[in-house]
């Protein structure tokens, strides 16, 4: 009999190896069909009509001129945008808010028709400024531990700084949207989503005129990036479903690029004034922080300051969420952590600089104030070795002559990553074929590959023998891919299901081999006797013994028990270091090298796991150096809602990257832990600290653009 417990390292044939992602060939050849690529017979195109005002009442919508265009088939008005709310105010809260939608035979006609829809607005005063804490009214959140005033007064060294990280957007390359096809009482949806099983929510029932979930079919085989912003159908989903219902034809509605950047989701800003007190030996004794920022009209902003190094005896924190008439925030990969990390680690690196203390020594010392001192200390040492810290390090300010200064910086981060509730069915057929089905999704992280590895490993088969199907809500439910919860969820569920299925097969095979089921295992394409491997039966022949009946078993990852049983765990630590060059004449920052050291429990596919870390570091380079949703406070408009001026990192921008995964037994024994979020947290802080170390002054606000670097150099000072 097989046990479900994860196999030991020397027993594994697939788990933990470097394995190519299974959908790689489909993606590299353009054969993979994303939601944006779904073309249905008779399909209409829909375009949105959005508000040009940051705050207003949309008084009326007139489709007359738009409908006069040949080929216009359906129109939709958004009740959540038109008219007044209960308090008597207009419902428009930000530029880009969806007011109406229109569907036509071709994309060109739909676009032109949308431009001919006349909406009458009554503009109202708006507020788009997130930089001034005075704009906050009300009672700040926060906490108070110990006595900050007294501790700061007694500290051997004190620093005071202001830091900031702006709103950035998700900028998914596949914009938000879906194809909706409502006919004969069945609603078929092809959405770009990171939550297939829960996508058909009440908004789809309402928009379809009351269809039950059993008649709403969701299919998402490939999706072009979500990063936390693609869980629910959204207003665009409601619009396309309603338009399909009205027209009786399929409707494709994908956001335009400017809409994607303005309303497709963003990461809240976080600005802070921070005071830190420390003892001569480097131990941090007090932190006093005022944090403010915006998540748009609603939502929360980062507030766990200090971050990771948080066992500080004296903490005072005041958090002010500034409501703005700007596009709403959405979960952005490791929600709140990158901001908290940047604010905290920047202030702490400045403390080390004020102490004239080596930064590595300072962080190793203060790793004692974290939840996992041993892990962070070990990771700091590994990262230092990988980047050549000893050879390259200097105190703040590169002392060498010349206009290009070089510096090192570092940061630490943490994340949960416990696998979500997830079900998986594994079927063994009499012809020997194996299927696994789960309503999960692959955001590009390798979900298909991970499930295939686990099932093949469990059944002792090559990966080609296992067919994995995901991405449909008719399959056993699996949680949304948020918070690094997918790999733990699907790997445990598929492990449990395939173990149960195998044991059912072994029961059938045991009499044939003349032994008890307990004596058998699956390995190398055989069911065989554990202590007498030559007493065996080939997989196909074993399955033939099933007669006409397949075996199907369902596995459930129930997070609590699964964690207790060691299948999954949570809470990882990571350290990153950056080596940068700063041209102090031009202000241009170049990444020479970055190192990421990451703990994530038992790794299923080392190749795609490393890619997650590489990708996170590259996203980090982008938000450290380039990304900012620039808003004009006067109009409330995002000024760079395109990809020319909302800059992502290119191939030449990322420098040399080194990734080290913590894979020793003590880490693996914890079970599987998610990896999507943690490595994206530290890059902003590590790069900003490296820039400060290079050029001798703190550049206080991300992104570290040339103008900001030059301004900081002109201002001077340590902080």
């Amino acid at each position, binding site marked *: 009999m097989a046990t479900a417990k994860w196999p030991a390292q020397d027993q594994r044939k697939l788990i933990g190896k470097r394995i*190519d992602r299974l959908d790689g060939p489909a993606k590299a050849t353009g054969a993979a069909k*994303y939601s*944006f690529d779904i073309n249905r017979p008779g399909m209409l195109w829909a375009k949105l009509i959005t508000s040009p005002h940051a705050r207003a009442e949309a008084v009326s919508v007139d489709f007359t001129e738009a409908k006069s265009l040949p080929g216009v088939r359906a129109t939709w008005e958004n009740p959540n945008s038109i008219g007044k709310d209960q308090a008597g105010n207009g419902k428009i809260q930000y530029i880009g808010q969806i007011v109406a939608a229109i569907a036509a035979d071709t994309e060109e006609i739909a676009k032109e028709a949308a431009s001919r829809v006349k909406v009458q607005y009554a503009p109202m005063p708006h507020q788009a400024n997130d930089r001034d804490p005075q704009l906050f009214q009300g009672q700040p959140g926060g906490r108070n531990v110990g006595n900050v005033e007294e501790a700061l007064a007694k500290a051997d060294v004190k620093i005071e700084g202001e830091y900031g990280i702006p709103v950035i957007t998700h900028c998914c*390359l596949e914009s938000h949207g879906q194809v909706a096809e409502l006919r004969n009482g069945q609603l078929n949806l092809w959405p770009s989503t990171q939550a297939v099983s829960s996508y058909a929510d009440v908004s789809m029932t309402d928009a379809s005129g009351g269809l039950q979930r059993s008649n709403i079919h969701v299919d998402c085989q490939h999706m072009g990036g979500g990063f936390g912003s693609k869980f629910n159908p959204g207003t665009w989903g409601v619009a396309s479903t309603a338009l399909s219902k009205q027209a009786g034809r399929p409707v494709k509605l994908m956001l335009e*690029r400017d809409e994607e950047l303005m309303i497709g989701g963003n990461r809240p800003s976080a600005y802070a004034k921070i005071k830190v007190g420390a003892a001569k030996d480097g131990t941090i004794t007090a932190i006093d922080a005022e944090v403010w920022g915006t998540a748009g009209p609603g939502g929360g902003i980062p507030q766990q300051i200090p971050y990771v190094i948080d066992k500080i005896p004296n903490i005072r924190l005041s958090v002010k969420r500034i409501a703005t008439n700007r596009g709403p925030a959405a979960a952005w990969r490791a929600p709140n952590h990158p901001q908290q990390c940047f604010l905290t680690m920047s202030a702490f690196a400045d403390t080390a600089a004020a102490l004239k203390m080596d930064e590595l020594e300072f962080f190793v010392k203060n790793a004692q104030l974290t939840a996992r001192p041993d892990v962070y200390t070990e990771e700091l040492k590994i990262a230092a070795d990988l980047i050549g810290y000893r050879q390259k390090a200097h105190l703040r300010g590169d002392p060498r002559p010349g206009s290009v200064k070089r510096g090192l910086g570092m940061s630490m981060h943490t994340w949960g990553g416990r696998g979500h509730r997830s079900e998986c069915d594994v079927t063994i057929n009499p012809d020997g074929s194996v299927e696994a089905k789960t309503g999960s999704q692959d955001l*590009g992280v390798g979900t298909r590959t991970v499930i295939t590895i686990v099932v093949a490993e469990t059944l002792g088969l090559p990966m080609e023998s296992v067919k994995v199907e995901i991405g449909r809500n008719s399959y056993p439910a699996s949680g949304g891919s948020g918070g690094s919860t997918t790999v733990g969820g699907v790997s445990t569920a598929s492990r449990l299901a395939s173990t149960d299925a195998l044991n059912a097969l072994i029961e059938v095979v045991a009499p044939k081999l003349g032994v008890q089921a307990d004596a058998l295992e699956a390995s190398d394409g055989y069911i065989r006797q554990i202590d007498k491997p030559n007493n065996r039966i080939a997989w196909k022949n074993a399955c033939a013994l099933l007669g006409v009946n397949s075996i199907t078993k369902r596995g459930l990852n129930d997070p609590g028990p699964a964690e207790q049983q060691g299948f999954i765990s949570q809470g990882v630590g990571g350290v990153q270091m950056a080596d940068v060059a700063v041209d102090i004449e031009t202000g241009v920052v170049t990444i020479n090298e970055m190192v990421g050291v990451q703990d994530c429990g038992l790794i299923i596919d080392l190749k795609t796991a490393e890619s997650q870390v590489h*990708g996170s570091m590259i996203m980090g380079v982008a938000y450290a150096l380039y990304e900012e949703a620039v808003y004009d406070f006067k109009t409330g408009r995002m000024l760079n809602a395109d990809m020319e001026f909302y800059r*992502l990192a290119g191939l030449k921008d990322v420098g040399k990257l080194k990734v080290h995964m913590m894979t020793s037994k003590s880490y693996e024994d914890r079970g599987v832990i998610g990896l999507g979020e943690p490595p994206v947290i530290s890059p902003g802080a590590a790069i900003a600290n490296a820039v400060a170390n290079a050029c001798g002054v703190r550049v206080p606000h991300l992104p570290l653009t040339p103008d900001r670097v030059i301004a900081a150099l002109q201002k001077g000072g340590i902080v």
Partner: protein
Amino acid sequence: MSEKLEPSQVSGVSRRGFLKGLSVGSVATGLLSDAAPSEAAERGRIQGPGEIPVTLRINGKNEKLSVEPRVTLLDALRNRLDLTGAKKVCDRGTCGSCTVIVDGHPVYSCSMLAVEAEGRAITTIEGLGTPAKMSAVQKAFVKHDAQQCGFCTPGFVVASTAFLRLNPNPTLEDARAGLGGNLCRCGTYAHMAEAVVEAAKSTKGGA
């Protein structure tokens, strides 16, 4: 635009060629637009605004379709011919996700009109390989895991293929510069240059 683009001028960076086009005319003029005028332009009369017949030579096959003159090559490929490998992302010549090869040069298909592409040899990602029979570049992208969500990947693969045809023996640095006209959001750059250089070595030209 009176000159023909030399290989060294395009060297995989279709944005540069695109900007060149911009400097002498409008966006609609596009890359290479005077190298071989379209049939429509040759006929010297105003086309549209309704649909007009266009024949496009795509992956060695003639495709007859009827499009309005304002339809981009990208939209014609995706919406009319169901060739959805080229992706629509920025829709204004920045990200490279829509890259196709036109007369041997990488082109942002969002920035060329379908009517302008008439009479030219167009190669899309679908013309480079299939999952069962991948090109050297495609194999190298899979092997080096130079893709995650994969939405930018066809654009990168096409751009890499065109780059290698013009630069058969690139260094890693050449590859990084040559693919500067494409963007990825997941951050799949870590081993992309290695993939391109390896593909070059395995085939002496990549595709």
